[in-house]
C-alpha cells in the first residue's frame, strides 16, 4: 500500500475550508446589507454611521467575545446580560457611596469573573448542564441588581462622565468613543489568545471532543472553568462600558441581552456544538445586528421590533447553514 492510495481514501476534499464558510457567509451578508443601506439612504454612506454602530454596540461586542470562548467549548452562558447589569449597578452604587473610581473599577471587574469561575466549577466538577448552571447565575445576578436598588442610580463621577464624553475623532469630524477602543483591544487580545496560545487551542480541542482532549492529556478542567471566568470578565467589562454609555445603573437594563449575544456569536459562524468559530466572525455577527438596527432606524416607518424579526430569521438561516455544512461533511 503506497501512501498515495491512502490519501485517496480521504472522503471529501473541500475547495474552500469548511470552517470558513459560515464566516464568509456572514461577511457577504454584512456587505449586502451595507450596500442596501447605502443605495437606499444617502446619509448611510457617512463614515460616522459605521462608527455609530460600533459606539452603540461596543459593550455587546465585548460580551460576545466572552460568549465565543464559552460556545467554542460547546457550552453556553445565559448569565451575561444579568452580570452586565449587576456590574453597572454595583459601580453606580459604590460611586454614589463615594468610593474612588479606581477602586470601584477593580471591584466591578472582579465580580463577574468570580461568578463565572464558580459557575465553571459547578459545570465541570458536578457535571451539570451549563444551561442550567448559568440560568441560576442569571437569576442570581438579576436578583442582586434589585437587591442593590430597585430603581435606577445615576452616575455623576468625573472619571465616568469623562469616559462617556471623550471623543476620539479624525479631522473630518467623525469620532468613536473610548468604549470602542476598549472593545477593539478586547477583540485583538481574544483573537490572539485563541489562535496562538495553548489555552486557546485547548478551547477548540475541548469543544471538538472533550473526551479525546482528556485522553490527549489536555487540561480540560482548567480550560472549561477558564472560559466561564473569561465570559464573566468580558461581561464585567461590558457592564462598565454600558455604564459609560448610559451613565447609570438600572436593575432592568440588558434584560434578554444574553440572547442577542448568542445570536451574534452564532450568526458570526461559531457552531453551537463547539470546536469551530472565530472572534472575527463574532465581530461580524455583532455588526450584522448593529446594521439591521441602523437600517430600521433609517427607514423610520418600521417598528423597532422588526429588528427582532429580522434577527430571528437570520439566526434560523445561519443555524440551517451550519447544519447543512455539517451534513455534507458527514
Amino acid at each position, binding site marked *: *500500500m*503506497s*501512501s*498515495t*492510495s*491512502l*490519501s*485517496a*481514501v*480521504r*472522503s*471529501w*476534499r*473541500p475547495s474552500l*475550508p*469548511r*470552517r470558513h464558510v459560515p464566516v464568509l457567509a456572514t461577511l457577504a451578508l454584512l456587505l449586502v446589507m451595507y450596500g442596501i443601506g447605502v443605495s437606499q439612504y444617502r446619509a448611510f454612506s457617512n463614515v460616522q454611521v459605521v462608527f455609530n454602530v460600533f459606539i452603540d454596540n461596543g459593550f455587546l461586542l465585548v460580551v460576545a467575545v466572552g460568549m465565543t470562548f464559552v460556545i467554542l467549548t460547546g457550552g453556553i452562558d445565559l448569565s451575561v446580560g444579568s452580570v452586565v447589569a449587576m456590574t453597572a449597578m454595583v459601580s453606580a452604587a459604590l460611586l454614589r457611596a463615594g468610593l474612588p473610581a479606581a477602586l470601584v473599577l477593580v471591584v466591578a471587574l472582579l465580580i463577574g469573573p468570580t461568578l463565572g469561575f464558580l459557575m465553571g466549577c459547578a459545570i465541570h466538577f458536578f457535571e451539570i448542564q451549563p444551561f442550567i448552571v448559568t440560568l441560576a447565575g442569571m437569576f442570581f445576578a438579576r436578583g442582586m441588581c434589585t437587591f442593590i436598588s430597585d430603581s435606577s442610580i445615576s452616575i455623576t463621577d468625573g472619571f465616568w462622565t469623562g469616559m462617556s464624553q471623550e471623543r476620539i475623532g479624525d479631522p473630518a469630524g467623525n469620532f468613536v468613543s473610548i468604549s470602542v477602543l476598549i472593545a477593539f483591544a478586547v477583540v485583538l487580545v481574544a483573537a490572539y489568545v485563541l*489562535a*496562538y*496560545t*495553548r489555552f486557546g*487551542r*485547548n478551547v*477548540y*480541542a475541548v*469543544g*471538538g*471532543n472533550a*473526551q*479525546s*482532549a482528556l*485522553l*490527549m*492529556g*489536555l487540561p480540560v478542567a482548567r480550560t472549561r472553568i477558564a472560559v466561564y471566568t473569561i465570559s464573566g470578565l468580558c461581561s464585567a467589562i461590558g457592564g462598565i462600558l454600558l455604564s459609560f454609555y448610559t451613565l447609570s445603573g438600572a436593575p432592568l437594563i440588558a434584560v434578554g441581552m444574553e440572547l442577542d449575544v448568542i445570536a451574534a456569536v452564532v450568526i458570526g459562524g461559531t457552531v453551537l456544538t463547539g*470546536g*469551530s468559530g472565530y472572534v472575527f466572525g463574532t465581530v461580524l455577527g455583532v455588526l450584522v445586528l448593529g446594521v439591521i438596527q441602523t437600517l430600521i432606524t433609517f427607514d423610520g416607518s418600521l417598528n423597532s421590533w422588526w429588528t427582532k424579526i429580522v434577527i430571528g430569521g437570520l439566526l434560523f438561516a445561519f443555524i440551517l447553514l451550519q447544519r447543512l455544512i455539517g451534513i455534507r*461533511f458527514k
Partner: protein
Amino acid sequence: MTGDRPVLTMTGISKTFPGVRALHDVDFRLFPGEVHALMGENGAGKSTLIKVLTGVYGTDAGTVTLDGEQVSFTGPMQAAAAGVSTVYQEVNLCTNLSVAENIFIGREPRRLGAVRWGEMRRRARDLLARLDLDLDVSAQLGTFSLAVQQMVAIARAIDVRARVLILDEPTSSLDAGEVAQLFRIMRQLRDEGIAILFVTHFLDQVYGIADRITVLRNGALVGEYRTGELPQFSLVEKMIGQELDVLERLDEQQKRATVALDGQAPLVDAEEVGRRGAVAPFSLRIHAGEVVGLAGLLGSGRTEVARLIFGADRADHGQVRTDGARSPLRTPIHAIDQGIGFCSENRRAEGIVPELSVRENMILAMQAARGWLRPIPRRRQDELVQKYVEALSIRPANPELPVRNLSGGNQQKVLLARWLITEPRLLILDEPTRGIDVGAKAEIQKLVVQLSDGGMAVLFISAELEEVLRLSHRVAVMRDREMVAQLTNDDTLDADRVMRTIASGTPREEVTR
C-alpha cells in the same frame, strides 16, 4: 531482531473490581523491537492489563518495571511522558482540529508563549514522512478517513519518543488495504527498536505481524509463545479453553447451496432502490429461510443498503415491498410492522441503551411494536428474557444488570435478542461479529444458521469474507456504493472470487492531490 533484555516487565499483577477478579497474578514482558500480541476473549483481562500498565487503574498486587526501574504511572499522560504511548480502538483525536495540531496539541512548539504554526506544520510533515504518509497537515482531521486518522494517532504517539507503543484494537474499523498500511508502519517502528503491544480480535493479523503472543483467559495468564511455535488452532483453544467443536462443526458444514426457492415469492423485494449520495439503485430479493450476505469494502455502501431496506433512510429512487404490505416500506415502524428487524453496526450509538438493564434493552423493540399503551406483563418479559439469555448464553446471566456492564460480545447478543423476541421474518445483521471474541462470534454464526433453518430470512453484512461465505446462500457484492454482483454461494464460489469481484471492473480512480 528482538533484544535480549525486556524493556517492560509486569510481574504478578492482580486487580480486583467489586465482585470481579479482573486479573490474577499475571506476568507479561515486552522486548524492544518486537510486536507482541496480547490475546484473549472479551473479558479475559486484556484491557485491564493495559489500563494497569498505563496507570488508568492502580494494582492490588504486582510490579511494573520499565528499563529495569520500577514504575507506577498515575495516568496515560505520565506513562506517555515516560515513553509508554497508547493508541486506542476509537480514535481519540479532535476531528475539528488540523492534522498538525492533533499531533502536537499539548506540546506545541512555542516562542514566548505563542504557538509557532509554521514550525508545527513542518515538524508534522517530517513525522508523517517517517510513516510514509503525505497529507495536507493543515487540513482538518475530520476530512480524512478513519484509517488516516488512526495513522495520525500513531504519529502523535511515537512523537513523544515512545519506547513502548500500545495499539488497542487499531484495526477493527480498517479495511484490508488500510490494515496492510498500518502493518507496514508497525514493522518499521519495530525495526527502529520500539516495542509494540498489539491487541486484536483478528487471528490472521496476529500471524501476519506478531513475533510473540501472550494469551490471557479469565484474568489469568495462559502462557507466552513464539508465534511460529503456536499453530492458529491451538491459539484459539488456549483462548477459549475448550475444544473447538463449535467452530469445527460450522467449518465442516456443507456449502450452503441455494435452498429450493423456485416459484417462491420473495419475502422482501427491493426494486431499483437507491438514494443519491448514499447508494446507486439496486434490486435485491430476499426469500424466507435465505441468508443473503453483503460483502464489500468499508464504505462501499453495505450499511446504506441495509438502512434503505429498513426505511431508516428514505429512498429517492425505487421502492421496497414485502409480501404482506399493501404499500411500499417507507419508515422503520412500517418495516418492523412487516417483520423486519435491524441490528445496527454501531451498537453503542444506535442500538444499546447503556443505562437500561439487559431485560429492558431486550424488550424495547417488542414493546415498540405493541405500542406503548399495551405494556408487556412483567412475567411475560421475564420468560422471554430468560429464554434468550439462555439461548444466546449471555453472561453474566443477570437480566437486571445495566447493559453497559457487559462486554462487547454480550451487548451484541442482547441486541440480537431484542430483535429475535419480535420474531422477525427478515433480520438485518450489520457487522454483528465485529470486535467480539472468537467464542461469541461462533455462537452468533451458529445462531444465524439455526434461524435460517427455521425459516427466517437474514441479510448478513460483514467485512470478513470467510464469515459471509460460511453463512450465506447468496452473496451480494458492493463496490463504490453500487451493487455490482449477486453470486450464488455454490462450490465455485470462494473468498478469492468474491475478492476479485470486489476489486475487478474499473473502479473509479480517486483523484489524488
